[in-house]
């Protein structure tokens, strides 16, 4: 063992490597203790079992009515259509359920990660190592996400049931996965942030779930109230223009909107109601505003119908879709949600990294960034305060020298 031999490498080149090595160090340790024993596998099994049960439940409920709907509803009585309705309903509800579960599970894995280290008095040992706080925090977040990611990915086969029925494509499943992972990332970062901010895990957990509620329910309520406020005097009950609505950016923060948008994007028109809901949020309830005219259209597949302002089809006579393409009903919100949550996660991770350092020590790191004095080449002598040329490591014999 030579004293600090590795530390002599060129720091500039070594910095990124050191960062990622620290991230992987934390990940390995976290995953080692997380995947140990039965707990992780029980959680995974329960999660998958629950989803499978939900999928089966949806099927038994929806299958008979789907056949009825196919027989008497739009598009003529075809088996293909009935099957698509079943597939689509399973996909929609499964996506929403999975999203709800992820909203609960992801913060649970991160809300204690820093505060528990504080409570168990292990944080001092960790931050007295040369690892950057950013690497510690990123490692913790990624370790939590690795497990949540495993749960999400392990559930793909259940979502893939819909491929047997139709109604949702592989693309839809990929989008669903992207939204789920973005949700896990964002809410995981929220949990980590509160965990780094607060001393007590309990309070961090409570505040994390409050934030999750604010994002999932609060944003929609805010959007609705805001819209009501700005439109209460308006006599126009037709599609609301952008100036008459709350800024739609509010709902970019809502994973549920992102997921419903994915659902709305599925082939047979996204379950009508959901698609029109998305269009409500966008201020284009099934109609291209350039067409003008009251009411609008709603499209199922390639067939469009006249629609009221809520996007509900009026009658069952197909009309000319005009310039509206069927895909226009969905695919708008989810990419925006994913980008917003990605940015949120990055910001919160950076903030958490600052908070991991004990408050009084933060200034030292600030000083580091504003041009720090050069590292002394040798130790300071007591008498004159002058630098000694030889590095200290040469003066202290290492055990290997003995």
């Amino acid at each position, binding site marked *: *063992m*030579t*004293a*600090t031999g*590795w*530390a002599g490498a060129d720091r500039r080149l070594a910095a990124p490597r*050191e960062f990622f*090595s*620290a991230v*992987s*160090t934390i990940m*390995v*340790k976290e995953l*080692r*203790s997380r995947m*140990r*024993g039965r707990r992780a596998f029980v959680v995974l099994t329960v999660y998958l079992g629950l989803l499978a049960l939900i999928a089966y439940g949806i099927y038994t409920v929806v299958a008979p009515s789907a056949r009825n709907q196919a027989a008497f509803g739009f598009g003529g009585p075809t088996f293909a259509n009935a099957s698509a309705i079943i597939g689509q309903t399973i996909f929609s509800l499964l996506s929403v359920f999975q999203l709800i579960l992820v909203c609960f599970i992801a913060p649970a894995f991160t809300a204690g990660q820093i505060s528990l280290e504080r409570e*168990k*008095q*292990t944080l*001092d*040992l*960790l*931050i*007295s*190592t*040369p*690892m*950057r706080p950013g690497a510690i925090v990123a490692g913790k977040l990624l370790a939590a996400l690795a497990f949540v990611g495993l749960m999400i990915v392990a559930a793909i086969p259940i979502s893939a049931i819909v491929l047997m029925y139709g109604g949702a494509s592989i693309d839809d499943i990929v989008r669903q996965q992207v939204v789920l992972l973005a949700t896990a990332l964002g809410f995981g970062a929220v949990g980590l942030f509160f965990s780094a901010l607060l001393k007590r895990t309990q309070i961090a957990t409570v505040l994390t779930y409050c934030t999750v509620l604010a994002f999932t329910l609060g944003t929609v309520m805010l959007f609705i109230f805001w819209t009501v406020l700005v439109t209460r005097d308006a006599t126009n009950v037709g599609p609301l223009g952008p100036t008459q609505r709350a800024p739609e950016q509010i709902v970019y923060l809502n994973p549920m909107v992102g997921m419903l948008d994915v659902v709305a994007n599925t082939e047979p028109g996204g379950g009508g109601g959901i698609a029109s809901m998305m269009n409500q949020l966008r201020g284009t309830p099934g109609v291209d505003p350039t067409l003008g005219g009251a009411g609008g259209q709603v499209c199922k597949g390639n067939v469009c119908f006249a629609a009221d302002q809520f996007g509900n089809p009026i009658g069952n006579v197909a009309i000319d879709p005009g310039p509206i393409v069927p895909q226009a009903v969905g695919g708008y919100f989810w990419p925006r949600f994913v980008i917003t949550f990605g940015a949120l996660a990055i910001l919160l991770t950076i903030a958490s990294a600052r908070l991991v350092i*004990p408050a*009084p*020590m933060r*200034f*030292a*790191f600030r*000083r*580091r960034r504003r041009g*720090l*004095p050069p*590292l*002394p080449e*040798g*130790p*300071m*002598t*007591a008498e004159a305060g002058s*630098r*000694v040329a030889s590095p*200290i*490591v040469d*003066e*202290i*014999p*290492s*055990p290997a*020298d*003995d």
Partner: protein
Amino acid sequence: MTPVIETRGLVKRYDGELAVAGIDLVIGPGEIFGLVGPNGAGKTTTMKILATLLPPTAGEAFVCGISVTEHPIEVRRRIGYMPDFYGVYDDLRVWEYLDFFARCYGVPAARRAGMIGELLEIVGLSDRRRSYVETLSRGMRQRLCLAHTLVHDPAVLILDEPASGLDPRARVEMREILRELRGMGKTILVSSHILPELAEMCTGVGIIDRGRLLRSGSINEIERSLRATALLNIDVLGDAEALASARDWLGTDPRVGDVLMTSDPSDGATRLEVPFDGGADEQAALLAAMVQAGHRVSAFSHATSDLEEIFLKVTGQQDQVEAA
């Protein structure tokens, strides 16, 4: 001698409360320096500053000549720090625990396996390599934590109360390990509020109380600087009368305090316990004078005042100074 640890006018204030009030420490390479003081004296604060976990309010601290506030990360690479209170990741195995910290310090994979074996050997946990940390006894955890400070082979060890809460046997083991580490050339700063613990192994001692370093140096130096009222054990041959006359003779010396006649419970012999205000030279002179005066001195032993006495004396003096 180049100091490995150096503090200059170190001050730390918590909410207006002075925890460390201007400490100047100079510790050379290869020393085991004991920081002794009652609880709340400022030992832990000083050590935390040196371990880059707390910034000083004023003053400077250097480890291996590197400022702890300007280059904390560089300092961390050179020190191994063991806090007074710490937790362990109990869902890890012993070797995984050390492996984790070795990775934290960037020790290459090729070196880790061998090094973990060596460290477990040093702290005597080789047979617990695959045990879970939670199954370890307190003493074992303490030794494991000590091992974790060594994973990156630091030049300096900062150990805050490494033997606190250990039974006597575990204390002895801990002491042996520290001695072994000193043999490996490490500079060790160790704190304790239990003084005899440090007396045997430290090359230097700093006595700290209420944030001030009251005395610093080797135990002998401190003793000398105190012109310690040494406690002499004097055996005089002859009957009780001879003993009494020796006692009376000693009583005439102004440097001698109240002489006690004690009987040793082990052999039943009676001897004199003489508090004597004078250094080694004066003690030798006293013995010579005593023999010249015709007292048949059979034993004249210098009951070395141990750290505990020194400590009580130093902090006692401080109290007197403050009372005056």
